[in-house]
C-alpha cells in the first residue's frame, strides 16, 4: 500500500531551507524564552541543545566522546549571536556564521582546568549576579564554578530549549523533510536486500552506506530490525509484562516468514529523522497479519481524524483507544506519539507515563511535528507497528513521510 502522501499531499513544507534565516529565527526564539524567564544567560552542554542554539552541525559521535570533545554554547540575553566553545573551530562543516569573537576553542568541562578557563570567559560575558540557566553539568563544573551555582540552584536550561523548539519554522520543516527523505531512500535500498539468510547486521551495513550516500550527517540510532516473537510469552521478560522493543540487532540470519519491526533514524542539518515499519521476510503476510495491518490503519485513521491544532493529546489517545476496542494500542513503556526535531524524541509526548492529566492539558499547536506509532498485537501473529510523521496545521495535519507499507 502506498505511503501517507498518496492520499494527503504536503503543501506547507518549502522545498529548500534558508539556513541563515532558520538560525536567526531560532536565536530569536531562544532569547524570547530567556526574556520570559528573566534570564541573562543560557549555558548549554547537551549536543542537541548546542546544535539548536548555535546552528552548529557536526557528525554526532558515540556518547563516550562527549567528555573529550563536548561543544558548549553560551546564549546572552542582549546579544543576537551565541558564543560557541568547540573543539572544531576552524571548520566549514560546523556551518555556523558566528562572528570570530564568538567562536572559541574547546573548554573540556570534565577537567578543573577546562572549567577554570570557561569560568574566566563566562565572567567576561555575563554581568555580576547574572541569572543563568544551564541544561546539565559535570561534577568539575559544579565544583569550580561559583558564577553558575549561586544561592539558587541554576534554572533549567534544557526546558528553555524544549520550549523554544516546540513548534518548527518552515525552514526547519524543510530540513526535517530532507532528513526523512534521506532515511526513506536508504530504507528502500535495505528493503530490496531483505531475504532469508541475510543477517540483521547486513541490513545495517546497507542502511549505513546508503544514508551517507544520500547526504546524512550521521546515524543516530543503532538500527532496529527486531524479529518479533509470534507470542508475547516467547519474547524477553519485561518490567511492564508487555512487549520488549526495541531489541538490539545481532548477526542473526533472518528466516522466511520472520516478522521484523523496523526502527531507524538519521541526522541531517541537525534534525533527526524517525522511521518505523513492519516487514515480513521472504513471503507475503498471512491473512491474520493483513487483518492486523487493516486494524492498524483504522487506528491511525481514527487518530488522524482528530489531529489538528487545538486538539489535546488526550483527544488522540482517546481516538486510538476507541478504535482499538478499548485497549491502548501502544507500548506502555513508550507512547502513542512523540515530537521530533533536534532530538529523536522530544516534546510533545502523547500517551506517555507522564500521565493522563498531562495528556489532557497538552494542546497541539500548528507547527508541531508529531510521530505517531500505534501498534496492533495479536498473540500468535507477531503484531504490526509503523510510524508516521506529521506536521500539525490549523485545520488538521500534513504528512512529512512518504514510504509505502509493503508488503502490506
Amino acid at each position, binding site marked *: 500500500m502506498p505511503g501517507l502522501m498518496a492520499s494527503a499531499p504536503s503543501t506547507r513544507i518549502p522545498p529548500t531551507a534558508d539556513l541563515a534565516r532558520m538560525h536567526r529565527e531560532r536565536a530569536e526564539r531562544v532569547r524570547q524564552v530567556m526574556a520570559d524567564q528573566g534570564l541573562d544567560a543560557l549555558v548549554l552542554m547537551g549536543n542537541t541543545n548546542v546544535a539548536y542554539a548555535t546552528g552548529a552541525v557536526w557528525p554526532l559521535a558515540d556518547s563516550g566522546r562527549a567528555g573529550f570533545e563536548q561543544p558548549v554554547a553560551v546564549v546572552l540575553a542582549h546579544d543576537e549571536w551565541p558564543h560557541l566553545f568547540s573543539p572544531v573551530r576552524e571548520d566549514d562543516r560546523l556551518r555556523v556564521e558566528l562572528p570570530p569573537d564568538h567562536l572559541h576553542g574547546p573548554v573540556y568541562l570534565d577537567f578543573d582546568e577546562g572549567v577554570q578557563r570557561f569560568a574566566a570567559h563566562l565572567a567576561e560575558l555575563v554581568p555580576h549576579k547574572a541569572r543563568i540557566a544551564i541544561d546539565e553539568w559535570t561534577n568539575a563544573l559544579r565544583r569550580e564554578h561559583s558564577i553558575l551555582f549561586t544561592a539558587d540552584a541554576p534554572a533549567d536550561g534544557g526546558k528553555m530549549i524544549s520550549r523554544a523548539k516546540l513548534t518548527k519554522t518552515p525552514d526547519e520543516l524543510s530540513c526535517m523533510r530532507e532528513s526523512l527523505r534521506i532515511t526513506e531512500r536508504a530504507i528502500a535500498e535495505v528493503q530490496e536486500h531483505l531475504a532469508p539468510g541475510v543477517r540483521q547486521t*547486513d541490513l545495517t551495513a546497507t542502511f*549505513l552506506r546508503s544514508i551517507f550516500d544520500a547526504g546524512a550527517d550521521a546515524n543516530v540510532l543503532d538500527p532496529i530490525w527486531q524479529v518479533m516473537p509470534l507470542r508475547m510469552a516467547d519474547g*524477553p521478560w*519485561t518490567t*511492564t509484562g508487555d512487549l520488549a522493543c526495541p531489541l538490539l540487532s545481532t548477526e542473526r540470519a533472518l528466516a522466511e516468514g520472520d516478522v521484523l519491526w523496523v526502527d531507524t533514524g538519521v541526522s541531517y542539518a541537525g534534525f533527526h529523522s524517525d522511521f518505523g515499519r513492519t516487514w515480513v521476510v521472504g513471503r507475503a503476510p498471512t491473512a491474520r497479519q493483513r487483518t492486523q495491518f487493516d486494524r492498524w490503519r483504522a487506528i491511525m485513521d481514527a487518530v488522524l481524524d482528530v489531529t489538528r491544532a487545538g486538539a489535546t493529546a488526550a483527544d488522540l489517545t482517546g481516538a486510538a483507544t476507541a478504535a482499538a476496542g478499548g485497549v491502548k494500542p501502544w507500548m506502555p513503556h513508550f507512547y502513542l506519539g512523540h515530537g521530533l526535531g533536534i532530538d529523536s524524541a522530544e516534546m510533545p509526548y502523547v500517551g506517555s507515563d507522564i500521565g493522563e492529566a498531562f495528556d489532557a492539558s497538552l494542546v497541539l499547536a500548528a507547527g508541531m511535528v508529531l510521530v505517531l506509532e500505534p501498534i496492533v498485537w495479536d498473540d500468535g501473529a507477531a503484531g504490526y507497528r509503523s510510524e508516521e510523521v506529521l506536521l500539525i496545521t490549523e485545520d488538521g495535519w500534513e504528512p512529512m513521510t512518504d514510504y509505502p507499507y509493503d508488503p502490506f
Partner: protein
Amino acid sequence: MTVTEVLPDDAALRAARRARVLAELEAAGVDVLVVGREGNARYVSGAPRLWTAGSRAFGPGCVLVRATGAVHLLSTWDEGIPDDIPHERLYGITFNTMNFVTVLQGIDGAATARSVATDGLTPSFSRLLPMAFPSAELVDGEPLLRRARRSKTPGEVDAIRASVRVAEGALATAEAALAPGVTERQLTGVFMEAMAASGVTTPAGQDVAWITSRERPWHRASRDVPVAPGDLVAFEAGAISAGYAGELGRTRAVDGDGHVRALFDRCGELWDRLLDACRPGAPASDLLDAYDAAGVPAPPMPVARGLGLGFDLPLVTHELPRTAAEQRLEAGMVFALAAYVWEEGVGAVYGQDPVAVTASGPEVLSTKPFRKARSR
C-alpha cells in the same frame, strides 16, 4: 566469531570491573553510586544497551549499592542482562521523572545512605535525588570512577584489541575506496558499511575521512568536495565493540605518496618521540613536550585520549597544560596516541594508534601500526 544473540559482557570481566568500583566506593566512603554515562553504566553492569549518537544528559541509568553490591539497571527487558542483576533490580524506561524517584526510593539502602555519588547532574535531578536519598549528601563520583577505570584489566585490553581489529578491517575497505572523485561523506559510508558487515554496527565517530588543507594547519571544507589528485586524506577510524572503543588514524595520498615522503617521515619521527614518552610514571606532559622537541606545532586534536568504555583517562591536550603536567602515565592505561604534522602547500599527515602502557614500556595494539616498529 558470529554473535547471533544479545549477550552480557564476559562474567570475569564484569566481576573484575565491579570489584574495582566497589573498592573505590569503600575507600571514598560512598554508599550509593548513581551513573548516567553509558560507559560508566556498562562498566558497572556489564549490560549492552541501545547505542544512540551524541551526548546524553544525566539520568539514573544504573545504581550500585556498596553495602550489598547490588546493581540496579534501567532496562525494560532482561535480554542481554547479566544473571547477577535479577528482574526485581531492573526498572523500565520512563518519561516521568517522578517515577525515577519512586524506583530509587525503593532501592535497599536508599533511605539510610549518607553519601551518594553521581557522574553528572541536571537541574531536575539535582532536586529529585535528595527526595530519593533523604539522608545523603550528593558527592562527586568522577574521581573514584576515574581511579577505577583508568588502568585496564587484561580482559579490557583484549576487548580494546578486538575493537581495534574491527576498525582496522573497515578502514582497509575505506582506504581501498580512496580515488579521485570520491567524497569524504561517501568514504564515511564505505567505512560504516564494512564495519557493520563485519558484525559491529556502532562507530566511535562518524567523521571518518577528511581532505587535509593545504592552506591552513587545520581546516575541513564541505564533506561533499570530491577528492582530487595530490590530496592528502586523513582517516579517523573507530569502532565500538562490546562497549569498548578501538580507534586508528591514518593518512593516504590519493595518487601515491612519493611527493610527500618527507612529511610522512616527519610524522614518523614525531611518533617515535611520542612513543618514547609513554613510560609508566612519566608525566603526561612529556607527550606535549615531544611535539616541542620535534619542532611540531600543537595538533588540532588531543595528543592522547583514553580508550575504554566511553570517556576514560588520560586526556592529554595542549589546551590543558596543567592537567597534563599533573597526570602520570600508568601501566594499564590505554589511549589513542596522535601524531599530526602539517606543511603549507602540501597538507597534513596524521597517524594515530592505540597504545597500552605496560611496566616494560609502550605496546601498540594495532596489527599494522602506522609507524613500523623500529629495531632497538
